[in-house]
Protein backbone atom coordinates (compact mmCIF):
# COMPACT_ATOMS: atom_id res chain seq x y z
CA UNK A 1 0.00 0.00 0.00
CA UNK A 2 1.20 3.41 -0.90
CA UNK A 3 2.09 5.89 1.79
CA UNK A 4 -0.52 8.55 2.34
CA UNK A 5 -0.76 11.98 3.88
CA UNK A 6 -3.84 13.64 5.31
CA UNK A 7 -4.85 16.73 3.36
CA UNK A 8 -7.25 19.44 4.53
CA UNK A 9 -8.15 22.35 2.32
CA UNK A 10 -10.34 24.88 4.12
CA UNK A 11 -11.42 28.44 3.47
CA UNK A 12 -13.00 30.82 5.94
CA UNK A 13 -16.36 30.19 4.34
CA UNK A 14 -16.31 26.42 3.86
CA UNK A 15 -14.40 23.17 3.99
CA UNK A 16 -13.21 22.43 0.46
CA UNK A 17 -11.41 19.11 0.67
CA UNK A 18 -10.45 16.64 3.33
CA UNK A 19 -9.01 13.20 2.84
CA UNK A 20 -5.99 10.99 2.30
CA UNK A 21 -3.66 11.67 -0.57
CA UNK A 22 -0.49 10.24 -2.01
CA UNK A 23 0.84 13.48 -3.35
CA UNK A 24 -0.02 17.18 -3.28
CA UNK A 25 1.24 19.87 -5.63
CA UNK A 26 0.63 23.54 -5.02
CA UNK A 27 1.91 26.97 -6.03
CA UNK A 28 4.21 28.07 -3.23
CA UNK A 29 5.49 31.57 -2.62
CA UNK A 30 8.85 30.71 -4.10
CA UNK A 31 7.87 28.14 -6.70
CA UNK A 32 5.79 25.05 -7.26
CA UNK A 33 5.80 22.68 -4.30
CA UNK A 34 5.35 18.95 -4.44
CA UNK A 35 4.61 17.29 -1.11
CA UNK A 36 4.93 13.58 -0.43
CA UNK A 37 4.24 11.80 2.86
CA UNK A 38 6.98 12.48 5.39
CA UNK A 39 7.75 15.99 4.22
CA UNK A 40 9.55 18.13 6.77
CA UNK A 41 7.50 20.73 8.72
CA UNK A 42 7.02 23.73 6.52
CA UNK A 43 4.99 26.88 6.62
CA UNK A 44 4.63 29.13 3.64
CA UNK A 45 2.41 31.45 1.73
CA UNK A 46 0.86 30.17 -1.45
CA UNK A 47 0.09 32.09 -4.58
CA UNK A 48 -3.22 32.09 -6.43
CA UNK A 49 -3.41 28.95 -8.53
CA UNK A 50 -4.39 25.31 -8.59
CA UNK A 51 -3.80 22.79 -5.82
CA UNK A 52 -3.52 19.28 -7.22
CA UNK A 53 -4.26 16.40 -4.90
CA UNK A 54 -3.53 12.82 -5.93
CA UNK A 55 -6.17 11.03 -3.92
CA UNK A 56 -5.58 7.50 -2.76
CA UNK A 57 -7.12 4.82 -5.03
CA UNK A 58 -8.31 7.36 -7.50
CA UNK A 59 -6.85 7.73 -10.95
CA UNK A 60 -7.83 11.36 -11.49
CA UNK A 61 -6.30 14.15 -9.50
CA UNK A 62 -8.50 16.51 -7.51
CA UNK A 63 -8.07 20.09 -8.63
CA UNK A 64 -8.83 22.97 -6.30
CA UNK A 65 -8.28 26.57 -7.24
CA UNK A 66 -7.23 28.87 -4.44
CA UNK A 67 -6.87 32.63 -4.39
CA UNK A 68 -3.73 32.39 -2.30
CA UNK A 69 -3.47 31.52 1.34
CA UNK A 70 -1.19 29.71 3.76
CA UNK A 71 0.19 26.22 3.82
CA UNK A 72 1.25 24.17 6.78
CA UNK A 73 3.02 20.86 6.37
CA UNK A 74 3.65 18.32 9.09
CA UNK A 75 5.08 14.88 8.29
CA UNK A 76 1.63 13.28 8.09
CA UNK A 77 -0.58 16.29 7.61
CA UNK A 78 -1.02 19.04 5.04
CA UNK A 79 -3.28 21.99 5.81
CA UNK A 80 -4.12 24.58 3.18
CA UNK A 81 -5.79 27.70 4.54
CA UNK A 82 -7.24 29.08 1.34
CA UNK A 83 -8.24 32.69 0.90
CA UNK A 84 -11.64 33.34 -0.55
CA UNK A 85 -10.58 36.63 -2.02
CA UNK A 86 -7.49 37.66 -3.90
CA UNK A 87 -5.28 39.27 -1.29
CA UNK A 88 -2.41 41.58 -1.58
CA UNK A 89 -0.89 44.22 0.59
CA UNK A 90 -1.95 47.07 -1.68
CA UNK A 91 -5.39 45.61 -2.16
CA UNK A 92 -5.96 45.25 1.56
CA UNK A 93 -4.64 48.72 2.10
CA UNK A 94 -7.07 50.09 -0.47
CA UNK A 95 -9.93 48.29 1.26
CA UNK A 96 -8.96 49.73 4.63
CA UNK A 97 -8.72 53.23 3.18
CA UNK A 98 -12.08 52.81 1.53
CA UNK A 99 -13.60 51.70 4.83
CA UNK A 100 -12.11 54.70 6.61
CA UNK A 101 -13.35 57.08 3.96
CA UNK A 102 -16.85 55.67 4.23
CA UNK A 103 -16.81 56.08 7.99
CA UNK A 104 -15.79 59.72 7.67
CA UNK A 105 -18.43 60.32 5.04
CA UNK A 106 -21.06 58.75 7.25
CA UNK A 107 -19.95 61.01 10.08
CA UNK A 108 -20.42 64.07 7.90
CA UNK A 109 -23.75 62.90 6.54
CA UNK A 110 -24.86 61.85 9.96
CA UNK A 111 -26.99 64.96 10.35
CA UNK A 112 -28.78 64.44 7.10
CA UNK A 113 -29.43 60.74 7.73
CA UNK A 114 -30.80 61.46 11.19
CA UNK A 115 -32.89 64.33 9.85
CA UNK A 116 -34.20 62.06 7.16
CA UNK A 117 -35.29 59.46 9.70
CA UNK A 118 -36.85 62.18 11.85
CA UNK A 119 -38.64 63.73 8.91
CA UNK A 120 -39.93 60.34 7.93
CA UNK A 121 -41.40 59.68 11.35
CA UNK A 122 -42.92 63.17 11.44
CA UNK A 123 -44.46 62.56 8.05
CA UNK A 124 -45.91 59.25 9.23
CA UNK A 125 -47.51 60.82 12.29
CA UNK A 126 -48.86 63.72 10.21
CA UNK A 127 -50.42 61.25 7.80
CA UNK A 128 -51.98 59.36 10.68
CA UNK A 129 -53.43 62.61 12.05
CA UNK A 130 -54.93 63.50 8.68
CA UNK A 131 -56.46 60.05 8.40
CA UNK A 132 -57.94 60.37 11.88
CA UNK A 133 -59.34 63.85 11.18
CA UNK A 134 -60.96 62.79 7.94
CA UNK A 135 -62.55 59.81 9.70
CA UNK A 136 -63.92 62.08 12.42
CA UNK A 137 -65.32 64.45 9.81
CA UNK A 138 -67.06 61.61 7.98
CA UNK A 139 -68.67 60.50 11.19
CA UNK A 140 -69.78 64.02 12.03
CA UNK A 141 -71.67 64.48 8.77
Amino acid sequence: MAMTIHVDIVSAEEKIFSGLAEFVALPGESGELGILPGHMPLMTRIKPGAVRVKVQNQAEEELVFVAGGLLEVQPSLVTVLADTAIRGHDLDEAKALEAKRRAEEALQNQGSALEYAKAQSELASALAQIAAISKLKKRGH
Partner: protein
Amino acid sequence: MASGKEIRTKIKSVQNTKKITKAMEMVAASKMRKAQERMRAARPYAEKIRRLAANLSAANITDYKHPFLIKKDDVKRVGLIVVTTDKGLCGGLNTNTLRVALNSLKDWESKGVTEIRVTAIGNKGLGFMQRLGAKVVSHVTQLGDTPHLEKLIGPVKVMIDAFQNGELDEVYLVYSRFINTMKQEPQLEQLLPLTGERLGTPEGNWDYLYEPDAQVVIDELLVRYVEALVYQGVAENMASEQSARMVAMKAASDNAGNVIGELQLVYNKTRQAAITKELSEIVGGAAAV
Protein backbone atom coordinates in the same frame (compact mmCIF):
# COMPACT_ATOMS: atom_id res chain seq x y z
CA MET B 1 -69.72 51.05 21.65
CA ALA B 2 -68.01 50.94 18.28
CA SER B 3 -70.17 50.22 15.29
CA GLY B 4 -70.07 46.88 13.50
CA LYS B 5 -68.41 48.30 10.42
CA GLU B 6 -65.54 49.81 12.38
CA ILE B 7 -64.82 46.54 14.10
CA ARG B 8 -64.91 44.72 10.80
CA THR B 9 -62.32 47.08 9.32
CA LYS B 10 -60.18 46.66 12.40
CA ILE B 11 -60.35 42.87 12.14
CA LYS B 12 -59.40 43.09 8.47
CA SER B 13 -56.35 45.23 9.23
CA VAL B 14 -55.16 42.90 12.00
CA GLN B 15 -55.61 39.97 9.66
CA ASN B 16 -53.41 41.68 7.09
CA THR B 17 -50.74 42.31 9.71
CA LYS B 18 -50.92 38.66 10.70
CA LYS B 19 -50.40 37.60 7.09
CA ILE B 20 -47.25 39.71 6.89
CA THR B 21 -45.78 38.48 10.18
CA LYS B 22 -46.60 34.89 9.24
CA ALA B 23 -44.81 35.32 5.91
CA MET B 24 -41.79 36.88 7.63
CA GLU B 25 -41.73 34.02 10.10
CA MET B 26 -41.55 31.47 7.32
CA VAL B 27 -38.90 33.40 5.40
CA ALA B 28 -36.79 33.64 8.54
CA ALA B 29 -37.23 29.93 9.21
CA SER B 30 -35.84 28.98 5.81
CA LYS B 31 -33.00 31.51 6.03
CA MET B 32 -32.18 30.31 9.51
CA ARG B 33 -31.28 26.84 8.30
CA LYS B 34 -28.90 28.22 5.70
CA ALA B 35 -27.37 30.67 8.15
CA GLN B 36 -26.69 27.84 10.61
CA GLU B 37 -25.06 25.77 7.89
CA ARG B 38 -22.80 28.66 7.00
CA MET B 39 -21.90 29.13 10.62
CA ARG B 40 -20.89 25.48 10.84
CA ALA B 41 -19.04 25.66 7.52
CA ALA B 42 -16.81 28.37 8.94
CA ARG B 43 -15.76 26.23 11.89
CA PRO B 44 -13.11 23.97 10.29
CA TYR B 45 -11.12 26.98 9.12
CA ALA B 46 -11.36 28.67 12.49
CA GLU B 47 -10.26 25.47 14.20
CA LYS B 48 -7.33 24.86 11.84
CA ILE B 49 -6.05 28.39 12.03
CA ARG B 50 -6.35 28.39 15.81
CA ARG B 51 -4.29 25.23 16.01
CA LEU B 52 -1.74 26.69 13.63
CA ALA B 53 -1.47 29.89 15.60
CA ALA B 54 -1.06 27.87 18.79
CA ASN B 55 1.71 25.80 17.20
CA LEU B 56 3.38 28.95 15.98
CA SER B 57 3.27 30.76 19.27
CA ALA B 58 4.92 27.72 20.85
CA ALA B 59 7.51 27.20 18.12
CA ASN B 60 10.81 28.60 19.21
CA ILE B 61 11.29 31.80 17.33
CA THR B 62 13.34 33.69 19.81
CA ASP B 63 14.17 36.65 17.64
CA TYR B 64 10.64 37.58 16.70
CA LYS B 65 7.69 38.31 18.93
CA HIS B 66 4.62 39.42 17.06
CA PRO B 67 2.86 42.54 18.42
CA PHE B 68 -0.44 40.62 18.52
CA LEU B 69 1.00 38.37 21.20
CA ILE B 70 2.38 41.07 23.47
CA LYS B 71 0.13 41.94 26.36
CA LYS B 72 0.08 45.53 27.54
CA ASP B 73 -0.26 46.32 31.22
CA ASP B 74 -1.55 49.84 30.92
CA VAL B 75 -4.69 49.95 28.82
CA LYS B 76 -5.57 53.48 27.79
CA ARG B 77 -6.95 53.13 24.30
CA VAL B 78 -9.46 50.48 23.31
CA GLY B 79 -11.02 49.40 20.02
CA LEU B 80 -14.41 47.74 19.83
CA ILE B 81 -15.88 45.85 16.89
CA VAL B 82 -19.66 45.75 17.19
CA VAL B 83 -21.51 43.15 15.16
CA THR B 84 -25.24 43.76 14.77
CA THR B 85 -27.89 43.12 12.15
CA ASP B 86 -28.81 45.41 9.29
CA LYS B 87 -32.52 45.06 9.76
CA GLY B 88 -34.77 45.20 12.78
CA LEU B 89 -37.81 43.10 13.70
CA CYS B 90 -35.72 40.49 15.42
CA GLY B 91 -36.81 40.92 19.03
CA GLY B 92 -34.28 42.11 21.57
CA LEU B 93 -31.24 40.77 19.72
CA ASN B 94 -29.53 44.06 18.88
CA THR B 95 -30.70 45.71 22.07
CA ASN B 96 -28.98 43.01 24.11
CA THR B 97 -25.76 43.20 22.10
CA LEU B 98 -25.66 46.98 22.27
CA ARG B 99 -26.38 46.95 25.98
CA VAL B 100 -23.32 44.80 26.53
CA ALA B 101 -21.32 47.16 24.29
CA LEU B 102 -22.58 50.21 26.17
CA ASN B 103 -21.83 48.68 29.55
CA SER B 104 -18.30 47.83 28.53
CA LEU B 105 -17.79 51.34 27.13
CA LYS B 106 -18.86 52.77 30.48
CA ASP B 107 -16.72 50.27 32.29
CA TRP B 108 -13.63 51.23 30.28
CA GLU B 109 -14.29 54.91 30.84
CA SER B 110 -14.46 54.40 34.57
CA LYS B 111 -11.18 52.49 34.40
CA GLY B 112 -9.42 55.43 32.84
CA VAL B 113 -9.55 54.53 29.16
CA THR B 114 -9.09 57.80 27.32
CA GLU B 115 -9.84 56.81 23.75
CA ILE B 116 -12.36 54.38 22.33
CA ARG B 117 -12.61 53.58 18.65
CA VAL B 118 -15.48 51.64 17.17
CA THR B 119 -15.90 49.53 14.06
CA ALA B 120 -19.54 48.88 13.30
CA ILE B 121 -20.60 45.83 11.34
CA GLY B 122 -24.31 46.12 10.61
CA ASN B 123 -26.68 49.06 10.36
CA LYS B 124 -28.18 48.95 13.84
CA GLY B 125 -24.87 49.15 15.62
CA LEU B 126 -23.68 51.91 13.33
CA GLY B 127 -26.75 54.04 14.03
CA PHE B 128 -26.46 53.42 17.76
CA MET B 129 -22.79 54.30 17.93
CA GLN B 130 -23.28 57.46 15.90
CA ARG B 131 -26.13 58.59 18.11
CA LEU B 132 -23.93 57.85 21.09
CA GLY B 133 -21.23 60.03 19.60
CA ALA B 134 -18.62 57.27 19.64
CA LYS B 135 -15.67 57.53 17.31
CA VAL B 136 -16.61 55.21 14.46
CA VAL B 137 -13.45 54.63 12.45
CA SER B 138 -14.89 52.14 9.98
CA HIS B 139 -18.11 50.35 9.29
CA VAL B 140 -19.72 47.92 6.92
CA THR B 141 -23.43 47.47 6.28
CA GLN B 142 -25.65 45.61 3.82
CA LEU B 143 -23.87 42.31 4.25
CA GLY B 144 -26.89 40.46 2.91
CA ASP B 145 -27.71 36.91 3.89
CA THR B 146 -24.28 35.48 3.15
CA PRO B 147 -21.34 36.91 5.03
CA HIS B 148 -18.34 37.41 2.77
CA LEU B 149 -14.92 37.72 4.27
CA GLU B 150 -14.00 40.09 1.49
CA LYS B 151 -16.35 42.76 2.79
CA LEU B 152 -14.95 42.49 6.29
CA ILE B 153 -11.26 42.76 5.42
CA GLY B 154 -11.18 46.54 5.02
CA PRO B 155 -13.07 47.59 8.16
CA VAL B 156 -11.25 45.05 10.32
CA LYS B 157 -7.89 46.07 8.90
CA VAL B 158 -8.48 49.61 10.13
CA MET B 159 -8.58 48.20 13.66
CA ILE B 160 -5.69 45.80 13.17
CA ASP B 161 -3.54 48.57 11.71
CA ALA B 162 -4.34 50.88 14.59
CA PHE B 163 -3.31 48.13 16.99
CA GLN B 164 -0.12 47.38 15.11
CA ASN B 165 0.83 51.05 15.01
CA GLY B 166 0.42 51.23 18.76
CA GLU B 167 -2.62 53.51 18.59
CA LEU B 168 -4.73 50.96 20.43
CA ASP B 169 -3.86 48.81 23.43
CA GLU B 170 -6.69 46.29 23.19
CA VAL B 171 -9.33 45.35 20.66
CA TYR B 172 -12.62 43.68 21.56
CA LEU B 173 -15.37 42.03 19.58
CA VAL B 174 -19.01 42.00 20.60
CA TYR B 175 -21.65 39.94 18.80
CA SER B 176 -24.62 37.75 19.43
CA ARG B 177 -23.59 34.17 20.02
CA PHE B 178 -25.86 31.50 18.64
CA ILE B 179 -26.67 28.89 21.28
CA ASN B 180 -29.87 27.45 19.85
CA THR B 181 -32.94 28.64 18.02
CA MET B 182 -34.55 29.95 21.17
CA LYS B 183 -31.44 31.31 22.82
CA GLN B 184 -28.88 33.85 21.67
CA GLU B 185 -26.45 35.52 23.98
CA PRO B 186 -24.44 38.70 23.55
CA GLN B 187 -20.76 37.89 23.79
CA LEU B 188 -17.83 40.19 24.41
CA GLU B 189 -14.44 38.76 23.47
CA GLN B 190 -10.94 40.10 23.51
CA LEU B 191 -9.49 39.96 20.01
CA LEU B 192 -6.13 41.62 20.48
CA PRO B 193 -3.69 40.98 21.94
CA LEU B 194 -4.31 37.27 21.46
CA THR B 195 -4.64 35.56 24.78
CA GLY B 196 -2.99 32.28 25.60
CA GLU B 197 -6.12 30.48 26.79
CA ARG B 198 -7.81 31.38 23.55
CA LEU B 199 -5.13 29.75 21.43
CA GLY B 200 -5.04 26.65 23.55
CA THR B 201 -2.10 24.36 23.99
CA PRO B 202 -0.15 23.29 20.94
CA GLU B 203 -0.27 19.61 20.11
CA GLY B 204 3.32 19.25 19.12
CA ASN B 205 6.44 21.28 19.01
CA TRP B 206 7.23 21.68 15.35
CA ASP B 207 10.27 23.42 14.13
CA TYR B 208 8.93 24.79 10.93
CA LEU B 209 10.79 25.76 7.87
CA TYR B 210 9.47 29.14 6.82
CA GLU B 211 9.22 30.42 3.31
CA PRO B 212 10.07 33.21 2.53
CA ASP B 213 10.77 33.95 6.22
CA ALA B 214 9.19 33.47 9.61
CA GLN B 215 8.06 37.03 10.16
CA VAL B 216 6.09 37.32 6.92
CA VAL B 217 4.32 34.02 7.46
CA ILE B 218 3.48 34.75 11.09
CA ASP B 219 2.17 38.21 10.20
CA GLU B 220 -0.12 36.81 7.56
CA LEU B 221 -1.29 33.97 9.71
CA LEU B 222 -2.18 36.09 12.71
CA VAL B 223 -4.00 38.69 10.62
CA ARG B 224 -6.02 35.90 9.04
CA TYR B 225 -6.67 34.43 12.45
CA VAL B 226 -8.14 37.69 13.71
CA GLU B 227 -10.20 38.03 10.56
CA ALA B 228 -11.44 34.47 10.93
CA LEU B 229 -12.56 35.25 14.48
CA VAL B 230 -14.48 38.29 13.28
CA TYR B 231 -15.95 36.31 10.41
CA GLN B 232 -17.05 33.60 12.79
CA GLY B 233 -18.71 36.27 14.93
CA VAL B 234 -20.54 37.68 11.93
CA ALA B 235 -21.68 34.23 10.81
CA GLU B 236 -22.99 33.44 14.30
CA ASN B 237 -24.68 36.80 14.47
CA MET B 238 -26.50 36.09 11.22
CA ALA B 239 -27.71 32.72 12.47
CA SER B 240 -28.86 34.44 15.67
CA GLU B 241 -30.63 37.13 13.66
CA GLN B 242 -32.72 34.71 11.64
CA SER B 243 -33.65 32.62 14.69
CA ALA B 244 -34.55 35.69 16.73
CA ARG B 245 -36.61 37.06 13.88
CA MET B 246 -38.44 33.79 13.46
CA VAL B 247 -39.31 33.65 17.15
CA ALA B 248 -40.33 37.32 17.26
CA MET B 249 -42.52 36.97 14.20
CA LYS B 250 -44.12 33.82 15.54
CA ALA B 251 -45.02 35.69 18.73
CA ALA B 252 -46.41 38.56 16.65
CA SER B 253 -48.56 36.17 14.58
CA ASP B 254 -49.89 34.53 17.75
CA ASN B 255 -50.71 37.91 19.27
CA ALA B 256 -52.49 39.00 16.11
CA GLY B 257 -54.55 35.79 16.28
CA ASN B 258 -55.57 36.61 19.87
CA VAL B 259 -56.54 40.15 18.96
CA ILE B 260 -58.63 38.89 16.05
CA GLY B 261 -60.45 36.49 18.39
CA GLU B 262 -61.24 39.23 20.88
CA LEU B 263 -62.43 41.61 18.20
CA GLN B 264 -64.61 38.93 16.68
CA LEU B 265 -66.28 38.46 20.05
CA VAL B 266 -66.97 42.17 20.40
CA TYR B 267 -68.28 42.28 16.86
CA ASN B 268 -70.69 39.40 17.48
CA LYS B 269 -71.94 41.04 20.67
CA THR B 270 -72.67 44.36 18.97
CA ARG B 271 -74.39 42.58 16.11
CA GLN B 272 -76.54 40.65 18.55
CA ALA B 273 -77.37 43.82 20.45
CA ALA B 274 -78.38 45.60 17.25
CA ILE B 275 -80.70 42.74 16.26
CA THR B 276 -82.27 42.60 19.71
CA LYS B 277 -82.84 46.33 19.64
CA GLU B 278 -84.46 46.21 16.24
CA LEU B 279 -86.71 43.32 17.25
CA SER B 280 -87.88 45.05 20.41
CA GLU B 281 -88.60 48.17 18.35
CA ILE B 282 -90.74 46.17 15.92
CA VAL B 283 -92.56 44.42 18.76
CA GLY B 284 -93.06 47.72 20.55
CA GLY B 285 -94.32 49.29 17.31
CA ALA B 286 -96.75 46.42 16.66
CA ALA B 287 -98.11 46.65 20.20
CA ALA B 288 -98.75 50.37 19.78
CA VAL B 289 -100.85 49.92 16.63
